[in-house]
């Protein structure tokens, strides 16, 4: 059980991000919490790809050693780019919310306007 320390680190990152999303009131801090959850998920994908005494899956000339699995690295690349796209759209919407409501407090925007 002591050898599962990378998985404990992933759970720690996800819990820090989740605490920021639930308990904070500023919109920018909520967006930072979402980004931290995204980083935790990317780290989890990379820790699934490790073999004992292995190296990176890249050849130098011929001959081979034990190599780690290349498919989770490819999935992590896609996940990072999708995280960047979602972050760009979230920040754009925050700029428009600030121009309309003049505040960034999440409990004072929206609601009934009639």
């Amino acid at each position, binding site marked *: 059980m002591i050898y599962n320390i990378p998985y404990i680190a992933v759970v720690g990152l996800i819990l820090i991000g989740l605490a920021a999303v639930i308990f904070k009131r500023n919109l920018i801090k909520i967006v930072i919490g979402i980004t931290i959850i995204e980083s935790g998920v990317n780290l989890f994908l990379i820790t699934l790809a490790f073999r004992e005494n292995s190296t990176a899956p890249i050849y130098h000339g011929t001959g081979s050693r034990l190599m780690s699995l290349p498919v989770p690295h490819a999935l992590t690349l896609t996940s990072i780019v999708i995280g960047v796209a979602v972050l760009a759209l979230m920040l*754009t919407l925050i*700029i428009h919310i600030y121009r309309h409501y003049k505040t960034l407090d999440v409990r004072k925007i929206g609601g009934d306007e009639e």
Partner: protein
Amino acid sequence: MMGMSKIVKTIASIAFPLSMIYGLYVIAHGHLTPGGGFQGGAIVASACAMILVAFGSVWTMGKIKEKHLSVLESLGALGFIGLAFFGLIYGINIFFNNFLVNQNVIPIFNEIGKGLANINTAGVLPLMNFAVGLKVIAGLFAIVLVMAYATRLSEGK
């Protein structure tokens, strides 16, 4: 945003070609060393963002409009899809077929063999790296430029 002082402008214009050459090296050698289209595109886009911070957003928007950047991004996406559709020829109906490897019709991208690490070794892969790299550079620079220009404060308030 306003630009920064003269020292920062000089050093940014010296460091910009070095960063761009390093990013293009990472894009071009994507099939031999760690790297590829997405990683090299992020390096060049952050070099362009350094120019944007040093010179101000009003000056940069005067040089490059965002419609030119969106044309470049569309060219990169069309190149990527065109290379994928070319795999449907030669009678083998597979989408995303690597059609430049193991054939004798087009002689330039044909080198194959273990341990032969040249630029034109891997068939369609270097061309796809260039297309995706162009798309990522234009896309990320357009996002940063549009956001910085739309939130500028008017001068002399």
